[in-house]
């Protein structure tokens, strides 16, 4: 029979929990507090965990609820993101049709752009594209339908691509698209 102690079930997910907390709160100290609160709450609720079910999804759900209930109000509101202004897909005249500029960006620039996404887009993108969780597990963790996961992820990536492209253009990594081309 597999070992299903709290320790063996929860500790393997600490890195994921910390990274998700960091992206939700936007600062390391707050992320550490959020993970500690999450683990304390999870330990107290361990009796209600169904053996054999997904511990990672269960922990992410607790972390996310803790964030919504106790942390979100203190968090900075992302600025400068117009979620209705979804950038168009790159066109055939794109100066960088293969998106090589992404590999030239440093982590801080990428993570700053991720942090600028509104909460509902950021959490889906972090869980899917940074942590590699399957759609079904994200849906379970966030208590939303799989279709909503997909549509938020689609928009999150487009918004993120737009902000990283603007950054790359502003720093000369790629030439700006000229007005005639758009």
């Amino acid at each position, binding site marked *: 029979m597999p070992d299903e102690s*709290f*320790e063996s079930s929860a*500790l393997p997910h*600490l*890195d994921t*929990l*910390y*990274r998700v907390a*960091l992206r939700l709160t936007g600062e*390391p100290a707050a992320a*550490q507090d959020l*993970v*500690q609160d999450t*683990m*304390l709450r999870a*330990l*107290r609720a361990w009796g209600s965990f169904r053996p054999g079910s997904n511990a990672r999804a269960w922990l992410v759900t607790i972390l996310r609820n803790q964030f919504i209930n106790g942390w979100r109000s203190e968090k900075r509101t992302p600025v400068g993101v117009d979620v209705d202004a979804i950038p*168009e*897909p*790159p*066109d*055939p005249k*794109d100066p960088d*049709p*293969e*998106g*090589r500029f*992404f*590999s030239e*960006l440093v*982590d801080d620039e*990428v*993570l700053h752009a*991720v942090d600028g996404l509104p909460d509902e887009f950021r959490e889906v*993108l972090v869980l899917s*594209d*940074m*942590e*590699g969780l*399957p759609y079904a597990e994200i849906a379970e963790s966030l208590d939303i339908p799989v279709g909503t996961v*997909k549509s938020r*992820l*689609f928009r999150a*990536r487009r918004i*993120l*691509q737009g902000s*990283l492209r603007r950054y790359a253009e502003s720093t000369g990594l790629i030439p700006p698209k000229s007005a005639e081309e758009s």
Partner: protein
Amino acid sequence: MTLPAECETALAQLDAWRRGTLPAEELASMQTHLDACRRCLSYKCHEDALLDRLSNAKHNCCCPDELRAAIMQIIATGSRDD
């Protein structure tokens, strides 16, 4: 701008294709579309590059030792309280 329906279909299936869950016949029609449509191919390249970059960014960040120690302490205290 409105994309042609076949482009919308191809873009919507990209994730299933990456995750290896796209049925064989849809896989073939998607590949045919990507071979012929520069816009969708460019879109795919951009998204692949973005996903690569996001996945790399995570590798430089893990749970700090002091947090891990604090959590071990929480577990140890919790176990003693049982």
